[in-house]
């Protein structure tokens, strides 16, 4: 088989790009298995001389990052479940239920999307403080329980559901909740899968709001705990790399498993964290 030089060059560029893209992540994993101090030598080693899981043991025992891991898992799951239900209901209502003022209400809601979330953050903190929700899980879950973008994604998908199907169910005397539960939800599965993975990943990765509202160490999520640890343990390269692996790897694995749903979310809604 004859290869043209252009083809060869193309693949050389792709392989070089892939190597550069993966290098930080591969080095993170490799350094997390190095012995303390090993990464800080000249020239810096690429692989551990003798792999050790000591850093991970220290994360879970002395530094109690297991707790932060559990917090992240709990909050990401809770936000995902609550927002799927509420965005699903609202998106479906905007797309399929007939009521006066629907389109005007929907347009007004979409217009509010231009406001970046940090703008709401200072009064939101004061509000949650007056409700006694600072440093509680609810302080993270409640404000994220429904999003305009999530409602919009469901709305776009739900618009394509056939009205005849819903009307037929109504003629047979099915209540609106039963129709939603038995007919609509199963049909919304693809968009809910997309919204679910996008929400889970963005909640897991979120930093600014958890940093603000979760003030006690026992409530920290992984990114907050890691950012604070990295200030205190700046010299412990290997330990910090283990912490980064613990933070980054779960979302990477989840993305690899559900890649198709995630990418379709990007293509339909321009979903951006």
């Amino acid at each position: 088989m004859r290869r043209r030089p252009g083809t060869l060059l193309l693949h050389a560029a792709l392989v070089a790009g892939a190597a550069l893209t993966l290098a930080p992540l591969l080095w993170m994993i490799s350094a997390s298995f190095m012995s303390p101090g090993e990464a800080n030598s000249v020239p810096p080693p690429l692989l551990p001389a003798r792999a050790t899981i000591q850093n991970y043991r220290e994360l879970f025992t002395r530094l109690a990052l297991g707790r932060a891991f559990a917090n992240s898992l709990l909050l990401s799951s809770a936000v995902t479940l609550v927002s799927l239900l509420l965005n699903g209901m609202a998106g479906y209502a905007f797309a399929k239920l007939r009521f006066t003022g629907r389109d005007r209400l929907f347009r007004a809601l979409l217009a509010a999307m231009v406001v970046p979330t940090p703008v709401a953050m200072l009064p939101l903190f004061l509000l949650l403080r007056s409700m006694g929700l600072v440093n509680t899980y609810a302080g993270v879950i409640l404000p994220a329980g429904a999003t305009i973008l999530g409602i919009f994604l469901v709305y776009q998908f739900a618009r394509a559901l056939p009205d005849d199907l819903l009307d037929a169910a109504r003629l047979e005397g099915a209540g609106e909740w039963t129709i939603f539960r038995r007919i609509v939800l199963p049909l919304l599965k693809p968009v809910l899968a997309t919204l679910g993975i996008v929400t889970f990943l963005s909640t897991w990765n979120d930093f600014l709001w958890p940093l603000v509202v979760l003030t006690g160490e026992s409530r920290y999520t992984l990114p907050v705990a890691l950012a604070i640890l990295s200030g205190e343990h700046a010299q412990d390269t290997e330990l910090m790399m283990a912490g980064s692996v613990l933070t980054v790897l779960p979302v990477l694995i989840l993305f690899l498993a559900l890649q198709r749903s995630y990418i379709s979310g990007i293509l339909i809604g321009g979903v951006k964290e």
Partner: protein
Amino acid sequence: MRTSRALPGEARAAFLFLAPGLSIIGLFFLLPIGASLLLSFADFDIYALADPTNVRLSGLANYGALVRDPLFWIALRNTCYFVFAGGPLTLGVALGAALLLHSRRARAKGLFRTIFFAPYVTTLVGVAVVFRYLYHPRFGLIARGLHALGIAPIDWLGDPHWAMAGIILLSIWKNFGYAMILFIAGLSNIPETLYEAARLDGASSWQIFRRITVPLLAPTFLFLGVITAIGYFQFFAEPYVMTSGGPLNATLSMGLLMYKQGFRWWNMGYAAAISFVLFLIILAVSLVQFGFAGRKDA
């Protein structure tokens, strides 16, 4: 349209379906936005936090103080530097990757696409910590790579001239995959027949790129330009983790300044004013997009 005929049963159901979601958005997003505007006109500091009766409306005092605050101008300049250098570079790398992957001769496209996209889903704080070590002038992998090329080590995060470049490099690495996916989608929407016709007419690859690919990708460029700018204007975690805004405030961003003023020093009125300036800038960028999109429809 059937929307005009509102049925009482459906309307009641709609109310119940919308109530929980819209209450949350109203209470935890829309209400705070309004309150934030109010807050920016108030003298709300740590004393007000302790006892709300200490709050005084202060008119434009916060905005006046902002204009006189050198830190604000530094943060604004840094943020613009980040957006206008980092944004185009991110899109440039993304377009390059998309063109490589769009080529019909490329093999294992799915694998490369996944690899290029992977950084986008990673936790920013996690990879910012990793890059802190990669940038180390003695022990960092980047210093080792540059050394192999005969380039003297750079103190990326310790040198005020290089710190922002270091943060931009991290952001390109992390974000180009997102734009790449949308560029690939845009490229595959360009009809193959256009390319064939151009080739038959003897157009060179560069001419085809310049005259067909770029113009037909314009909507993608516009969308990505705006959405990248909006995201980049709010950058916060990168300097928080990597530099704390230093050295010598070289990486202090508007987001970081707002956080420090509001949640570290509790100057919440002042911080609200910063957040509104940021919002106005982002609004202006969004309007540019609407302006362009509207002109195309006309």
